[in-house]
């Protein structure tokens, strides 16, 4: 921002203010029809240029002076303002019970609240939000929540147990992408207005963590019903509330949704009836900007306050320039190398020793240092760092050892190496913004050092994904994004035969499956951690999947922004964000 005002100052001097600008336009438009428009508008941007972070006059119904009267003790100078995020948005819907994309949780997290939440960077400790407290039965099948009794929705309606039950039922009955999350619920009861007792179909120690997912937000049942919503069976056909929920919100959160124009903007404003501590910002706009370079320009010009999709190179440049702040946090995304375990598809890879050899051959540190510029960590297996039982599995992590790799190959009778086809998404991007091609080439290079002759096989992203899902690839690189905040969300798809990821490489180890299935049925976190660690030890020994990295989220924010913390579930809690200056 400083650089920007300095720059416009220089330009003004050099070109003699408006006259100069006009002549400049004249030159560039060469006396064309646009000249008239140009000079007409020449003064238009003046104010915005001088103080780029100030909202244009007339656009701000509540001037920043208004809240100053009710100054809080901790108040920094000048609260309020509009906070603009530049982001590659992927929103299909803003209905909390239907959305399953990456951008929608920012909005759902700001306009709605959940029974429980987390306080990043700690993602293991679950803290109360709408629930004051809870009790979990010893068999981890019954969860009783006591709700706060002072919560009102933006509409003014008080939050009751009926709203929570309505919301969870609707999530399940809509039969949309996230509905499976609610399928673990057998029944729900409300002994009184502020108690919800949830009984699960089977023991599930991960349920509390699942409730952190924005899909389990509490909706104002009265308002949703008024707009055609229902939680009854058949809601997938009869529920008509989504269209309204795409443009409005029905939650108890600190913000309310004002409008959504697809691929353009999402606008939220402060909820004037918020029951809790009011947020500092007046308005939040998420602006769709696909190109990272454009995001950077907007940020450096002061036109946006945060840029979400910058690549590692831009981040490094910005960090060097020091014009903005970089906020980092751990994502729950993992990138992994998958090897088919069958004779038919995996060929040489069907031998466990060969897979282990490859595991020892990959230069994991090199991938993180060179390709991700250090912005990643590497958990021992595909379960992301920070979750239960991952730290305990640290001893089972592969580290590069070329000699050991060669020895293992020799043991398997492949001392002279073998031919391997590595399939990747042509022109694709892996998690953490890494080019698929760069990553595949790096791995091919590493493997060549133990004599493996890699043929790189680029395929259109959708074709590769479809072929991988169909279990047709000898080996490939792929990413996994989180469904919910518990190791259970990875242990099952990767460790249990026939489940989403395991099926793609024909991986079957009943011992691993049993350990992972047992781990979700016990309440004691220590015992859970032990079971997950043991399962990961066996999984790594079998080596069907090798975690390559877990990228860090890197968000660039303007210097005037405070309180911005990366949240792996909702990206950022905008209620905590403040702007100074």
């Amino acid at each position, binding site marked *: 921002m400083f650089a920007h005002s300095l720059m416009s100052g220089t330009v003004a001097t050099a070109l003699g203010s408006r006259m100069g600008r006009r002549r400049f336009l004249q030159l560039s*438009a060469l006396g064309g029809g646009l000249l008239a428009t140009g000079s007409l508008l020449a003064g238009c941007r003046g104010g915005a240029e001088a103080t780029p972070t100030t909202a244009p006059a007339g656009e701000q119904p509540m001037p920043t002076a208004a809240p100053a009267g009710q100054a809080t003790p901790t108040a920094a100078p000048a609260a309020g303002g509009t906070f603009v995020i530049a982001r590659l948005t992927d929103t299909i819907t803003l209905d909390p019970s239907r959305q399953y994309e990456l951008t929608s949780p920012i909005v759902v997290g700001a306009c709605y609240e959940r029974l429980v939440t987390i306080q990043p960077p700690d993602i293991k400790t679950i803290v109360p939000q709408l629930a004051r407290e809870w009790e979990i039965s010893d068999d981890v099948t019954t969860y009783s929540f006591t709700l706060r009794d002072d919560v009102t929705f933006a509409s003014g309606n008080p939050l009751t147990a009926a709203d929570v039950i309505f919301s969870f039922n609707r999530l399940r009955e809509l039969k949309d992408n996230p509905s499976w999350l609610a399928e673990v619920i057998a029944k729900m009861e409300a002994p009184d207005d502020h108690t919800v007792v949830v009984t699960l179909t089977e023991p599930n120690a991960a349920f509390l963590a699942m409730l952190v997912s924005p899909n389990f937000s509490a909706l104002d049942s009265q308002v949703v019903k008024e707009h055609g919503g229902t939680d009854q069976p058949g809601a997938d056909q009869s529920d008509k509330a989504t269209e309204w929920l795409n443009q409005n919100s029905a939650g108890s959160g600190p913000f309310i949704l004002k409008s959504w124009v697809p691929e353009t903007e999402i606008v939220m404003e402060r909820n004037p009836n918020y029951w809790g501590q009011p947020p500092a910002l007046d308005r939040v706009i998420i602006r769709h900007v696909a190109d990272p370079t454009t995001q950077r320009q907007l940020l450096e010009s002061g036109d946006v306050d945060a840029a979400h999709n910058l690549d590692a190179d831009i981040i490094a440049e910005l960090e060097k320039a020091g014009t903005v702040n970089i906020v980092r946090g751990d994502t729950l995304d993992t990138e992994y190398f998958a090897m088919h375990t069958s004779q038919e598809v995996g060929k040489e890879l069907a031998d466990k020793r060969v897979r282990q050899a490859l595991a020892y051959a990959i230069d994991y540190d090199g991938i993180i240092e060179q390709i991700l510029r250090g912005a990643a960590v590497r958990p021992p297996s595909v379960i992301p760092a920070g979750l239960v039982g991952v730290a305990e599995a640290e001893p089972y992590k592969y580290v590069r050892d070329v000699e050991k790799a060669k020895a293992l190959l020799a043991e398997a009778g492949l001392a002279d190496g073998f031919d391997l086809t590595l399939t990747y998404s042509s022109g694709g991007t892996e998690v953490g913004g890494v080019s698929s091609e760069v990553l595949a080439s790096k791995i091919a290079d590493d493997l060549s050092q133990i004599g493996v002759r890699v043929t790189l096989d680029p395929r259109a992203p959708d074709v590769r994904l479809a072929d991988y899902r169909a279990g047709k690839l000898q080996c490939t690189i792929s990413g996994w994004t989180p469904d919910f905040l518990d190791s259970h969300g990875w242990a099952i798809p990767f460790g249990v035969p026939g489940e989403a990821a395991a099926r793609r490489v024909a991986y079957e180890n009943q011992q691993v499956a049993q350990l992972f299935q047992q781990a979700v049925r016990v309440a004691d976190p220590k015992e859970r951690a032990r079971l997950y660690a043991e399962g990961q030890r066996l999984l790594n020994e079998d080596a069907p999947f090798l975690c390559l990295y877990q990228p860090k989220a890197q968000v660039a924010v303007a210097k005037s922004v405070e309180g911005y913390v990366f949240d792996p579930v909702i990206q950022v809690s905008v209620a905590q964000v403040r702007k100074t200056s």
Partner: protein
Amino acid sequence: MLLRFIAKRILLSIPLLIGITLVTFVVSHLVPADPLTAVLPERAWNNPETVRMYRERWGLDRPLHEQYLIYLRNLVRGDLGESYTTRRPVGTDLRLFFPATIELATAAMLYAVTVGIALGVVSAVWSNRLADHLARLIALVGVSLPVFWLGLLALQLFYAKLGLLPGPGRIDTRLVAPPTRTGFYTIDSLLAGQTDVFLNTLYHLILPGMVLGSYAMGIIARMTRSSLLEVLSLDYIRTARAKGLAERRVVVGHALRNALIPTVTVVGLTFGSLLAGAVLTETIFSWPGIGRYAVDAATKLDLPAILGVTLLIAVVYVVVNLITDILYGVLDPRIRVG
């Protein structure tokens, strides 16, 4: 007469449009990928029931010819189907994204026509002098520079470095879009009485308009120059000059009108290509238009969306050609229809 002509042209375009849907349909199905791959989340693939439900929802479980017939039947009713990726009716999506593109293409055309013709006239009148060389250089640059390069450079220079013109997007980042009635920000802002948004919208059209219009500008300048030079050497111009008419009147009043006929053809054709070819400009300027929608649809194999966009562009071409033909008549009574 004119009405009959138009009616005939519209009737003739119907088989053309059907042919276009058929070709697009077949070509899209030659791609060896499952359109649901991009749509269904990982978990859903685990449940064959969900996958079946999705296939049924979009009729993907039926044989190809049946799918096509269903598409045609719905098309007649004005139903373009539902997009796999946005989950909205394609018609809604087109209404949502097309106005942005028309607005941008109009700005580009305005720039291309005014500047292009002006440059062409300057070139022709002072042919082979310094002004001509300069004008031709500008036209050459406009024609030869790739749009993405020009766009990035223009943004970097005029926005990021100099701060003279606004950055990407249809309005300033801190402004909120006017309430949607037509989808054209220029019109919607005026309808809502938001003059600040209106002015801001115009201001935001300058840079992308110039970038998108640069190619057409170059073509128009060249076309105007050559046809004007040709006309200026004709006998009737010599007569006009001999009569002692002012040079200005000779050029603008007598020569230009005749010289513009080839230019109109070019304008008509390039307007169509501006609409279709706005992809790069829209990407660079974060412009939520039909070009970007088309690219997304193509990369995700979103068949209903691909068909919808193709049809729309085809209709635009037909309409633009029609208007071009009518304009000929206005410029030259000899080729008036009838």
